[in-house]
C-alpha cells in the first residue's frame, strides 16, 4: 500500500435486512452500500456525491464503526481499522461532523461543556470549568461565534449557530481524517463561506484529509481534489475534480451536472 494513503476502503458492503410488513416472513434486503472500494490520500479532499438514499451516510457510518460491515475491509494508514483496538486512538483521529446539529447537541448542557467535552475526554485539556470555558471560547472564535454564548444552552441559539457549535466541537481535537456529512447544507451562504474557507485553511495548516459528503456540486467544484459519484450503493465514477466537470464519464454524472447548470445559470434554463 502506498504510504500517502490515509484511508483505504476495500470491497465494503452494508446490506440491511428488513421485513416489508409485520406478517411478511420473507426478508428483503437493501444494499445501502454495495461493494465499494476507494483510497483517500493524505491532505486530500475526497468528495462523495449522490442523491438522497444512495448510501453516503451509511458509508460514513461504516468508516466510523457505527454500524457493522456486511463484508469488506477498511484500513487507516495501513492498519486494519478496528475501533475495539483502543491503543490506536482511531476515535480521535477520525471525526465526523454530522448533518443535523439539532439532534447532536445535548440540550441540557451549556455550550462550553459541549464544545470542550471531546478535548477533556482525550486529555487535551483539564476538566476544570475555567479551562473548559477558555478552550471553548477559542473554538468559538474559530467558527465565528461570540465567546459570550459559551455559557448559553443550545436552545437559545439559531440553527446556523448550532451547526457552528458542532463544527467547533469536531475540530477541537484536531483529527487526521474528518468526515463531513453535508456540513453546510443547512447553513446560510455567509456562514457557509466562512466554514468552507475555514475548512480549507485547516486542511492546509494541519495536513488533515476530508471525506466531503454532499449533494451539492457547487461545493465539489469549489473544494474537492477528487470526486466519487455514488448511485444505489455503488460507485459510478471516481475522477479528478477538474476532469469530472470537463468530461464526466458516467451518464448519471452527466445528469447531476445538468442540475448544477440549472442552478447557476439564468432562470431561463428551467
Amino acid at each position: 500500500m502506498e504510504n500517502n494513503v490515509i484511508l483505504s476502503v476495500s470491497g465494503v458492503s452494508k446490506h440491511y435486512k428488513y421485513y416489508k410488513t409485520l406478517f411478511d416472513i420473507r426478508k428483503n434486503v437493501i444494499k445501502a452500500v454495495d461493494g465499494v472500494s476507494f483510497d483517500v490520500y493524505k491532505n486530500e479532499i475526497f468528495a462523495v456525491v449522490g442523491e438522497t438514499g444512495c448510501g453516503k451516510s451509511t458509508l460514513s457510518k461504516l468508516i466510523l464503526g457505527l454500524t457493522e460491515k456486511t463484508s469488506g475491509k477498511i484500513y487507516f494508514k495501513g492498519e486494519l481499522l478496528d475501533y475495539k483496538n483502543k491503543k490506536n486512538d482511531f476515535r480521535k483521529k477520525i471525526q465526523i461532523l454530522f448533518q443535523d446539529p439539532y439532534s447532536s447537541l445535548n440540550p441540557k448542557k451549556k455550550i462550553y461543556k459541549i464544545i470542550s467535552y471531546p478535548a477533556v475526554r482525550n486529555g487535551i485539556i483539564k476538566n476544570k470549568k475555567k479551562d473548559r470555558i477558555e478552550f471553548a471560547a477559542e473554538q468559538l472564535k474559530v467558527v465565528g461565534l461570540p465567546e459570550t454564548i459559551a455559557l448559553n444552552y443550545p436552545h437559545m441559539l439559531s440553527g446556523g449557530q448550532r451547526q457552528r457549535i458542532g463544527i467547533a466541537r469536531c475540530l477541537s481535537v484536531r483529527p487526521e481524517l474528518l468526515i463531513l456529512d453535508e456540513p453546510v447544507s443547512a447553513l446560510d451562504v455567509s456562514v457557509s463561506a466562512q466554514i468552507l474557507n475555514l475548512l480549507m485553511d485547516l486542511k492546509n495548516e494541519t495536513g488533515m484529509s476530508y471525506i466531503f459528503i454532499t449533494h451539492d456540486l457547487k461545493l465539489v467544484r469549489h473544494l474537492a481534489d477528487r470526486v466519487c459519484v455514488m448511485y444505489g450503493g455503488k460507485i459510478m465514477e471516481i475522477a479528478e475534480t477538474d476532469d469530472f466537470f470537463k468530461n464526466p464519464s458516467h451518464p448519471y454524472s452527466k445528469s447531476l451536472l445538468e442540475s448544477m447548470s440549472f442552478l447557476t445559470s439564468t432562470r431561463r434554463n428551467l
Partner: protein
Amino acid sequence: MALEINNLTVELCAGKDESGCINVVDSLFLSVKEGEVVSIVGESGSGKSFLGLSILKLNPQGVSRIVSGEIKISCKSQNVEADILKLKPDELTDVRGKIISMIFQDPNTSLNPVMKIGEQITEAILTHKKISKKEAKDIAVKYLNYMNIDGLARFNSYPYELSGGMRQRVMIAMAMVLNPCFLIADEPTTALDVTTSLQVLKLIKEIKEKSGVGIIFITHDLTVARSISDRTYVFYAGQVMESGNTEDIINNPAHPYTISLIKSIPSLSPDYVPKQKLFNISGYLTKDDFKNGKCRFYSRCFKRDDGCLNDIGLRNFPDSENGGKYGRAVRCIKFNSRGGAK
C-alpha cells in the same frame, strides 16, 4: 390581481422591558403580481419568516405585533379586494388558505403524521368549500396527480411512508387545492437535496404558469432565487436592502450586502475561481443590528463610514425602467446608480 405591502412594520419584544423591542420587519414595501415569483433572500434570523407569517397575521402572538402599514390584496377569481390588516377574524380565516396559502420548509410540522395524506387534503378543501366529500376527494386526487404523485395509489398513505420530496409535493398540493391567488413559500426546498429540490422548483414554476398564482418565495439561497424568481428583494435585519429584477441584481449588485452575498457563493459570481477563498462577510447578524438609526448592515459592511450612521431608506434607481414598486431600488448612501457602491 396583486398583493401590495406598504410600509409594514412589525415589532418584536422578546425581552422584559420596552428597550428590548425591535422592528423585526421595518417599513417594508413589497408587491407581487399575477403569475409572478418574487424572492425574499436573506440569511437566517433576518426576519423572513416573520414577514411571511405577518402577511397572514400569523406572527407569534404575545411577543410581536403589527405596528403599522397595509397589506392590500386584490384577487379577481375569489372576488376579493381588501386590506388584510383591517379584516375581521372570520374574514381573515377565509383569506388564509383560500386566497393566500403558505408552505413551509419542514413539511413534517404542517402535515399531520397520523392522518392519511388524501384525507388531509380533503379536509382542507371541506373547511373552505361547501361540496360533498366525494367531490372533495376527487379534487384531492386530481391535485396529487398534478404534483406527480399517483393520487389514487397514494391517497391512503401516511406522511412517513413518503420521501421528503414527496411530502413537500403533498404540501404544495394542499396549498394549491383551493386555487389561491397567492402562495407564500417559506424555504420550501431548503431541506431537500439538489435533485429533489430541482423537481420541486420546476413544479412550482409550472404551477405558476398554469394557475397564474403570484408567489412570494422565501429563501436564504440566492442561487435558488435566481432559478425561480422574476424579481428579488434582498432582505437584511428586517429591511429590504435592494430590490429589482433578479438577473440585474446578480449581474450588477448595488448594495454592499448583495455584493458580499454573491461573492460568498461558489460559482455564482461571474469572476468566480474554484478553490480560491470565498468572500467572508465579517461578523454575524445580531439583534442589535435591528435597532433603528444607522444602516442595519453597518456593523458588517466593507464600505461603511460615518455617512452610514443615518439610515437613508430605500431609494429607487433614477434610471430604473419601471421605477417605483417594480423597479430597482437600493438602500445605501454609498451608492450612485452609475458607478455602483463607491
